């Protein structure tokens, strides 16, 4: 009996302390900087098109096969405003299947996909779990705004930089060829 009372007393002493939990719907705890939410596609603003070229590496490497992608010839490559020969046409991620492992981000060589901070995407419709290209790009834009993301490899992937680099290389080549042929036309393609 005395033992029971002693036990109850120990419990009672803890009763007066502050609560330690956050009440979820009213109170959202902030996410950490490296937080991996649902994957999102990123937009190359210098060419006004997504970074994604539809190379299908992420689709193949996904452990749950939650993605599908389709590419087509990039019209902007033809008129010289982009360095991407192919561009994504359709991209769909089944968010129900996605396990947020981040493998797609690891394998992507084009800085096209990134784990965003989104984690509250519940919807009432059954089709609501399917994220299409528009939604994925929206999520990506929100992620860039929140995190200040920058492409890891801009020389290869940002259209403006890549085009400038190519132009410079072409100019250098032309100049060296021109030197050999003693031509006098300087290149003006500097950005």
């Amino acid at each position, binding site marked *: 009996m005395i033992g*029971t009372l*002693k036990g109850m007393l120990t419990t009672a002493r803890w009763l007066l302390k502050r609560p*330690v939990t956050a009440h979820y719907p009213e109170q959202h705890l902030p*996410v*950490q*900087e490296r*937080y991996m939410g649902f994957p999102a596609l990123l937009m190359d603003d210098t060419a006004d098109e997504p970074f994604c070229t539809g190379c299908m590496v992420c689709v193949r490497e996904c452990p749950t096969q939650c993605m599908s992608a389709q590419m087509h010839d990039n019209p902007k490559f033809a008129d010289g405003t982009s360095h991407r020969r192919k561009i994504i046409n359709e991209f769909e991620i089944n968010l129900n299947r996605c396990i947020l*492992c981040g493998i797609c981000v690891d394998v992507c060589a084009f800085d096209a996909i990134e784990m965003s901070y989104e984690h509250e995407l519940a919807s009432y419709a059954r089709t609501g779990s399917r994220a299409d290209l528009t939604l994925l790009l929206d999520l990506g834009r929100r992620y860039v705004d929140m995190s200040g993301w920058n492409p890891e490899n801009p020389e290869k992937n940002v259209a403006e930089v890549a085009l400038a680099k190519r132009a410079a290389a072409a100019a250098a080549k032309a100049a060296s060829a021109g030197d050999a042929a003693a031509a006098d036309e300087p290149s003006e393609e500097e950005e």
Partner: protein
Amino acid sequence: MTTEQAYDTVDMMLNMGPQHPATHGVFRMVLTVDGERVVDVTPHIGYLHRGSEKLAENESYGQVITLFDRLDYVSNLNNELIFCRAAERLMGIDPPERGQYIRVVLAELNRLASHLLFIGTYAIDLGAMTPIMYGFRERERIQNMFESVTGARMMHNFIRIGGVKEDVPPDFVPRVRALADDVERGVEEVDRLLTFNEVFLARTRGIGVIDVPTALSCGLTGPGLRASGVAYDVRKDYPYEVYPYLSYKVPVGENGDCWDRYYMRVLECYESLSMVRQCLDQMEEGPVMAQMRRIARPPKGEVYVHGENPRGDIGVFLVSDGTDKPYRVKVRPPSFCNLVALRPMMRDAYIADAVAILGSLDIVLGEVDR
């Protein structure tokens, strides 16, 4: 009818689970009871079977890590570590020292989180509602730390074959130090609240006693075995990673009852905290990933690697046929093997203690059923 027959009693079958809150998942026990005493118990498993071992045969080595995350889903990093070590052994890779230190820090923090969850849920099993709040508060801190390092709270996919995914954030060391102090205070608090509580002692002392020969013959490992008095710890007996550079004690119990099994885990929390601190002291700058090809393709062969999980001795038997997918992945899950000891522990116990005994084994059904 003779008098003997008239008073003859019949054993009763009592079904417990699969949807029982005290079984920590979908686990079913069929108890044969004689009055209030348990005569026999038959565990039924397989409700959470996902075929992880078979699935692993169709996934590349990098993808298998995500399956291992989901085996023992409260100590994910320990599971990732064991698979990566198996693949590394097969490929003959030695991860860089910093990578190993990061792995050990994370694995020990995960052990802490797992034990804190055990302490909380065990108290709930026995009718004490408060400790789980404190257990979860500390676990939450650890998981926030994981989130800042790996990007996920539970399914990390952070430990990779050859090292870890990326280096830790720059404020890692001071943050973990502060975390260790906080968690130590929290563990002490729960310890004070629960361990020598009279009601708790009455529910656990001398319940579910298992002696050393029985425990060994059942294949019991981890805190369950150490509670019986065998100082078997894979980290000490078959050292791996950077454990040989750390000094720590292996807590050993005396009676092998539920209280000892509980208390071993509390003591291990303190040891893990000391290990984390030592790792932070010893850690030096350097690479975190070994030089290797992007796609892991171990040579033909087979390997068995084991390590100490929060629940016991986890082993992975990995067979490679030289392709980028494993030929066979066999897991020796500690929870599954510990369940063998359920029958000897439960014999002649009261029905009311069945929950206490099952809880003290700390099974995780994701690992039992795979």
